Each structure stands twice: as structure tokens, then as C-alpha cells.
């Protein structure tokens, strides 16, 4: 029977090895089944709990699928207008330099309408952390082509696939910000498998720790799925992502601080 819990005798507080962090509340997230946003949220929340900075962290929410992310976190958060999260984070961090300040943005928010804010905050070397969730599409508005849409990738506005001659090239904004002297740590990760989740969590921890050292902007891209926008079941979307997204958006560190 599916609703019968097996090995009930093991369910004791001393045997507990994993439970959702209390930094997230019990609201059911509005994301589609299997969407990487939920996993990315949880990893950020787990790191906040492990670093014991719940009362010292301020998050800036974007516009896009994750526009309502402040409904899920038990931390201080501020909504920014579309693409402006790095500008809002700049103001917050300059007023409260001792707080840990992060933005959380999708590819439409960060790499399209917010390109100027992204690049200039990174170029100024603001001591903030930027989490960039890249699923190659505008998820919230119905799966339109984004700057990050791959060549040949179908979207609701590129039904025959993205044509480079007509629509331009997909943008690797993460490589772009890595060129700027203001960034200290730039990495690209994923959250679709246990090993990628563990790596991403380590990267989040590093990024927030670098922020405490005041050495510049830390920037983590998470390549993620958009099952609904890509029109695939979640598991198949993750396989498609490995086959198609990862060769172009290669995972790994792009820039790391020189060891101090």
C-alpha cells in the first residue's frame, strides 16, 4: 500500500537525518512539479540555517516565476521591480554593510531587462551575492524565447527553433560578468541530481562566505529546467537539459578568488 509507512520503528528523533529546513515555511510552493526553483530555494535556505545568519540576511526577489519567493522564506525579503534586484541589493547592502544580501533572479529578469543592473552591480564589485536561475526561457509569461534560449530551441515565440541569423545568439552572461574586475566568485551549477545538489550547496556556502570578506560580487548561475515551458515531463526535461543545455552552459567554476 502506497500510503503505508515502512520501517516505522526507525522513525525516532535520534534517527532523523534529513528534514526540510525551518528557514522555509510550510506554504506549498507555486512552482510546477519538478521545477528546479524549489530545490534552489531550499539549498539557499539550508545554507542560511547552517551559517546561522537567519536574522542577518536580506533577500531581494525578482519578477518572473520566482516573484513570490518571499512567501516561502522565513527571512527578510524585498521585492524589486523587473530586473532591478541588483540595484535594490546595492542600496540595501550599502545601508547595512553587515547584513548578508542576495538577489535571486531568472534569466528574463537578470539577462534581459536587468542586464544593465547586473553588469554594473558586478562591475562596481558590490558585496552582494547574485543567484541566477537559467532555464533558457520566459517561464512565467508562457515560454517565450529568452536571451538564454539555445540555438534551435523551440519556445512559444520560436516554434521552429531559435534562428541565430534572425534572433541573435544565446547570451552567456555568466562568462560576461566573470570578465569584470568587481566579481570575486563566478560559478555555474545545477540542481537536478543528488551530486549536483551537493555541489551547488557548497557553492552557495562559498559565495555567502566570500561576501563576508568584502571582496566583491559573488555570482552563481544554476542551469535549471522548465518542464512546462519546454513541454516535457520533469524527468525527461532534466535529461534534455543534460544533453542540450550543459554543452553550451558548461558547469563548473568560471572564476575563483585568489587564495588569501
Amino acid at each position, binding site marked *: 500500500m502506497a500510503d503505508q509507512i*515502512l520501517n516505522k520503528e526507525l522513525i525516532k528523533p535520534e534517527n532523523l537525518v*534529513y528534514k526540510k529546513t525551518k528557514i522555509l515555511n510550510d506554504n506549498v510552493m507555486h512552482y510546477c512539479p519538478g521545477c528546479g526553483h524549489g530545490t534552489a530555494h531550499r539549498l539557499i535556505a539550508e545554507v542560511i540555517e547552517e551559517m546561522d545568519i537567519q536574522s542577518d540576511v536580506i533577500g531581494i526577489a525578482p519578477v518572473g516565476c520566482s516573484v513570490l519567493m518571499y512567501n516561502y522564506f522565513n527571512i527578510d525579503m524585498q521585492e524589486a521591480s523587473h530586473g532591478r534586484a541588483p540595484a535594490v541589493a546595492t542600496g540595501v547592502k550599502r545601508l547595512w554593510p553587515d547584513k548578508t544580501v542576495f538577489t535571486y533572479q531568472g534569466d528574463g529578469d537578470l539577462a534581459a531587462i536587468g542586464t544593465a543592473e547586473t553588469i554594473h552591480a558586478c562591475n562596481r564589485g558590490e558585496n552582494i551575492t547574485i543567484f541566477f536561475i537559467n532555464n533558457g526561457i520566459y517561464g512565467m509569461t508562457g515560454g517565450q524565447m529568452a536571451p538564454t534560449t539555445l540555438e534551435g530551441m523551440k519556445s512559444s515565440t520560436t516554434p521552429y527553433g531559435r534562428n541565430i541569423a534572425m534572433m541573435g545568439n544565446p547570451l552567456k552572461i555568466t562568462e560576461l560578468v566573470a570578465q569584470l574586475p568587481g566579481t570575486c566568485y563566478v560559478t555555474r551549477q545545477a540542481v537536478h541530481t543528488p551530486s549536483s545538489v551537493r555541489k551547488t550547496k557548497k557553492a552557495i556556502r562559498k559565495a555567502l562566505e566570500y561576501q563576508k570578506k568584502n571582496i566583491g560580487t559573488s555570482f552563481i548561475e544554476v542551469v535549471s529546467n522548465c518542464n512546462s515551458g519546454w513541454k516535457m515531463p*520533469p524527468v525527461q526535461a532534466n535529461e534534455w537539459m543534460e544533453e542540450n543545455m550543459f554543452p553550451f552552459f558548461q558547469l563548473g567554476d568560471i572564476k575563483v578568488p585568489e587564495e588569501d
Partner: protein
Amino acid sequence: MAKVRGTIVVDIEKCKGCEICVGACPTSVISMSTEVNAKGYQYAYLNDPDGCTGCTNCAIVCPDGVITVYRAKVK
């Protein structure tokens, strides 16, 4: 010999049936129910009392954080 055994508790009403946890389990002991929850999703459940090692793989990939894991050494 001491053996590690584990179990998972899925918050059935919050599971969205995405099946990401199924492929993440190294011992393949998670299945999807035939019944559905109140939202209409088939939910994940542990199908074999001896197969779970409490590795937490399923829980850390679950986008909705609905899996709790317990683990103990048993004789």
C-alpha cells in the same frame, strides 16, 4: 553484523508527483502510487522495507522538500 537501514516519510499531500526522487534513489526503492492525493498527483512512496539505506538522495533532490529521512544501524 550491523547494517544501516533507513526509511522515508513523504508528505503525501504536498508531493507533486514529479518523479525526480525515483531516479535519484541508488537502490531503486521509490515508486509512484496508483492513487492520487487531493491535488490529483500520484505520490512517491517507499516500496521495499529492506532497500532504503537512508542516504538522503531522494530528499535532497525533491523540489518541494517533502521527504524526511531516518537512518539507524540495526543488528
